[in-house]
């Protein structure tokens, strides 16, 4: 498991190679394997037969992070704290043999894996763009547990350590060097080992800065007024970013602040205590569920139709060089595909290429690295005004104006030049796929590929199967989406699909509150403070009030006599028909929009909807805004609109910004407790009407005492 080799300079190389695994993982097994090794090294040191140590890996990656399954299932604070302390002691032993230790990092080292590297005196990394380094724990609602926060504090100072830890970025070697979390880059493995050796030959200092008397934390501790007031601002800024909703960045900041005032070992213990508290928080578990378990469940392809070989798309055609089309083009390009952008003229299509150029520039300007050079990427983009250039495309996606005639026309033109294996994806938001597909000459190859805006930031794609879409096409669409590193969720061809339909209930609930007499500013703040990315009224304006209403019309058509009109529809009609305020695109909606000014809530709202609610329960208002979405999502699950709970959860977080700390729209119920949720729905139903009536699925689950997984 750990190979031991000593050279003539008394330098020991320890090569990690865990048996029966593709990667080395930092678990109990490896910690135990290290015990005799460390003891032996200490003996060697005492006999003055040890100059230094190199730790490297025989696997493709260096060392992977901790055991999430173990943490997720563990509800004992004693055990979690003990686990963190054990690992911490291991790292202390590792960095304290009295001789310098080098981490020779040959591949990816993330999370706890990177903590081991931080517990070495020096870090040399092979400069390969596929190597990823750093601390992404915060993305899962976590933080380093074993001294990683405090070591970064001592290496970088409070402010920089905070940035590295709370950004959750996985850094490429060059970025990591710039961030100051590694010391040197190497060309290849031989160069790496040589540089590690050279470092060991250059120094005999076996202590870390925190073990040397008189050494201090760079830029000072919070006892220094400048750092203290910076730390204070960082705290305030966390509230600005996410109110009190995400505990992990707070725990990281608090560990840094408190840890800067005490000695290293005490600081590490404070870290373990914050870590333990974090693991016990529901937000953390919800995030681990969504971003680890649900994510892996989806990518494992549980819902991908079986029996079709893996589709490896190389070239993608995109129709429409607008925001959506350009965004899709860039994402395909970034993930290694070739792109053909078509629009009504080459000049218009060139706009797409301009956009791609801007994006590449912004990568360069912000120090983010990509595997290829800017020119190499640009050579892979072709712009055109004719579908003839789609001839070698494995798939073509249209992102043109939301109009059935236009969409049909571009589809038919493209099909003439596509072979019978290529698939055609439409990015419609509201036209049924079956209806559009009827115009296709190969409807079995026609499918809905619903990207979200902005494409670069939103990792979700809804795959919508029409009546005639073949299973093979679904499988290929799935493979395409994962090839560009997005999350595919399979959605039934139904009114509003999934994301738009559920998001609309949030908007409608907010609008209804206006009608009930709550001040508009309060409604918006409740939305944002509940964890949604924007207030419901702002979202309505962005979407356009017509589209919000249109989804309700679609629902009315779909459910027929069973449809119960949402009370907010009255408000929408007043706004659209009487006030002619139809949304951001008209510069007037619930907000007033003026050039070079932040939009502000339209004063007329107060006259139209008197603010009669002076006393209010903020917790309940926030909850109502989320309950509305949760219930609609359960209807979607019950109606088979969305096929699995992981898809419903991640779809909600990435599709319309449902709070991640709740773990997604269905996990919300697990988190809330089903029985309590049902009781609360009953109360809301009697106070606010039948839209809070629970779908039968939930009552059945309650009787069966089952939970969503």
């Amino acid at each position, binding site marked *: 498991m750990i190979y031991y080799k000593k050279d003539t300079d008394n330098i020991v190389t320890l090569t990690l190679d865990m048996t029966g695994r593709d990667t080395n993982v930092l678990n109990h097994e490896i910690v135990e394997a290290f015990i005799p090794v460390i003891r032996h090294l200490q003996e060697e040191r005492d006999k003055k037969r040890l100059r230094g140590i190199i730790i490297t890996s025989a696997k493709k990656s260096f060392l992977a992070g901790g055991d999430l399954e173990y943490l997720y299932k563990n509800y004992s604070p004693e055990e979690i704290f003990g686990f963190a302390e054990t690992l911490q002691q291991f790292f202390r032993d590792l960095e304290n043999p009295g001789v310098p230790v080098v981490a020779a990092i040959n591949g990816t080292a993330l999370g706890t894996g990177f903590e081991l590297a931080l517990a070495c005196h020096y870090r040399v990394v092979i400069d390969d763009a596929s190597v990823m380094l750093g601390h992404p724990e915060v993305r899962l609602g976590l933080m380093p547990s074993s001294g990683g926060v405090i070591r970064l504090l001592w290496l970088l100072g409070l402010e920089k350590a905070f940035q590295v830890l709370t950004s959750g970025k996985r850094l490429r070697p060059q970025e990591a060097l710039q961030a100051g979390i590694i010391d040197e880059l190497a060309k290849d493995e031989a160069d790496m080992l040589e540089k590690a050796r050279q470092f060991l030959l250059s120094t005999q200092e076996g202590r870390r800065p925190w073990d040397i008397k008189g050494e201090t934390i760079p830029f000072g501790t919070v006892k220094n*007024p400048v750092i203290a007031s910076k730390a204070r601002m960082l*705290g*305030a800024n966390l*509230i600005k970013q996410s109110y009190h909703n995400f505990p992990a960045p707070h725990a990281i*900041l*608090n560990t840094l602040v408190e840890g800067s005032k005490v000695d290293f070992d005490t600081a590490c213990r404070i870290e373990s205590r914050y870590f333990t508290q974090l693991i016990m928080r529901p937000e953390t578990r919800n995030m681990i569920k969504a971003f680890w378990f649900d994510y892996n469940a989806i990518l494992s392809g549980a819902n991908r139709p079986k029996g079709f070989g893996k589709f490896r798309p190389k070239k993608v055609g995109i129709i429409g060089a607008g925001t959506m089309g350009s965004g899709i083009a860039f994402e395909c390009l970034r993930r290694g595909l070739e792109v053909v952008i078509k629009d009504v003229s080459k000049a218009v299509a060139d706009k797409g290429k301009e956009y791609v150029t801007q994006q590449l520039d912004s990568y360069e300007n912000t120090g983010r690295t990509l595997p290829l050079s800017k020119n190499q990427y640009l050579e892979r983009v072709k712009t055109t005004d004719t579908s003839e250039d789609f001839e070698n495309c494995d798939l073509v996606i249209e992102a043109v104006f939301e109009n059935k005639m236009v969409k049909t026309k571009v589809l038919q033109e493209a099909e003439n030049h596509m072979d019978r294996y290529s698939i055609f994806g439409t990015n419609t938001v509201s036209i049924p796929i079956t209806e559009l597909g009827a115009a296709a000459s190969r409807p079995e190859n026609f499918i809905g590929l619903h990207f979200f805006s902005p494409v670069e930031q939103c990792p979700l794609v809804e795959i919508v199967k029409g009546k005639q879409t073949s299973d093979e096409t679904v499988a290929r669409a799935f493979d395409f989406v994962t090839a560009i590193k997005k999350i595919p969720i399979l959605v039934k061809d139904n009114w509003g699909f999934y994301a738009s339909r559920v998001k609309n209930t949030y908007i409608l609930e907010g609008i209804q509150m206006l009608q009930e007499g709550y001040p508009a500013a309060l409604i918006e*703040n409740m939305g944002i403070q509940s964890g949604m990315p924007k207030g419901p009224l702002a979202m309505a304006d962005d979407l356009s009030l017509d589209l919000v209403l249109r989804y309700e019309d679609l629902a009315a058509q779909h459910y027929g006599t069973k449809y119960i009109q949402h009370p907010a529809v009255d408000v929408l009609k007043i706004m659209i028909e009487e006030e002619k305020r139809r949304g951001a695109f008209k510069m007037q909606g619930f907000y007033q929009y003026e050039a070079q000014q932040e939009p502000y809530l339209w004063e007329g709202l107060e006259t139209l909807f008197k603010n009669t609610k002076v006393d209010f329960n903020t917790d309940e208002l926030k909850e109502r805004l989320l309950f509305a979405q949760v219930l609609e999502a359960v209807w979607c699950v019950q109606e088979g609109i969305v096929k699995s709970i992981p898809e419903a959860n991640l779809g909600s977080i990435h599709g319309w910004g449902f709070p991640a700390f709740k773990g997604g729209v269905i996990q919300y119920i697990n988190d809330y407790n089903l029985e309590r949720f049902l009781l609360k729905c009953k109360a809301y139903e009697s106070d606010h009407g039948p839209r809070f009536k629970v779908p039968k699925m939930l009552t059945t689950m309650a009787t069966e005492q089952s939970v969503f997984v």
Partner: protein
Amino acid sequence: MDAYIYDAIRTPRGKGKRSGSLYEVRPIDLLSRILSAMQTRNNLDTSQVNDVIIGCVTPTADQGANIGKAALMYAGWSDEVPGMQINRFCASGLDAINLGAMKIRSGWEEVIVAGGVESMSRVPMESDGGALIYDSEIHTKVGYIPQGIAADLIATKEGYTREQLDAYALQSQQRAAHAWDNLYFKDSIIRIYDRNGLLILDQDEYLRPNTSLETLATLPSAFQKLGDSGFDQMAMTKYPTVEKMQHLHTAGNSSGIVDGASLVLLANEKKGKALGLKARAKIVAASTVSSEPTIMLQGQIPAAKKALKMAGMTTKDIDLWEMNEAFAAPVLKFQQALDIDNDCLNVNGGAIAMGHPLGATGAMLLGTLLDELERRDLSTGLVTLCVGGGMGVATIIERV
């Protein structure tokens, strides 16, 4: 047994920065200087004083190690006099007096000297690094925002305009200038000399008597940047009906950062007579309260109401009011809440014009109020301050 006020004195206020006249003077010198003045003015046998209570908000560095007792020793008061330092933020000086009055009314003690000191130039505000402000877990959890943001929050909620706040500030400047020009304060100001007897400062130096609405209007918002860094959102978490924070307070309509010290001599009637002193006023009521801590600067309202109730009085029974001008908005809010005539409130200006030496201000205001009641030959006065953490302190006095 009532507590009577026999004397109330204060130093002039120096600008609280390096260029301020009192920057070269240690805070212990400021305090010792007025202790000596109090002893001389009243021909006081200091051994008869039962306790000295000194308010100080940043009791660290030059102001650390119980500056109350330290100054007594340095001033050469009797070894038998104990001294202590207390901190109730901006009301420390007034609370020192109230505590003194309570000691006397309890009958356990007879003569108390109370007041405060703050050298904001020497010991900057918040430099004691408390958890409430600098511990990232505590301040975010309890929603402790900078006071300027709290003042802006009041202005936003109440819909005050920048013009209203500036107009109030201008009035403070004009009233303070008028009071100084007409020597209203002359009997209570204790000049500060150096160790050779050379004069360092004999009057408040923060005033801008020639300012105008136009000049005030040009000043930039003082708390916009702080607000943008996230404190606005902290405020809006508690006050979610606010659409957008209006940052209307500036250096011109907020209190000045200054250095100074103040003292009041209290005793019961019998002891006062025995010491040959003449009582000037009686402490009728004293209150301490606390309210919602994020908006913070509204505690003066319940504090004043509580004191009035205690005294069996209403707003119209009070002849003159002093409400500390920490910022313009809390004063306007206070005036509005208690329906106070503008001609009776802060009639000689306040901290916006003359400055707010944190721990010393409370006792300064009480002295200013008493002086003016005597000058106008009026009877009752109420002094109050808004306090960090939502607290409020008020005192009602009546001339005898």
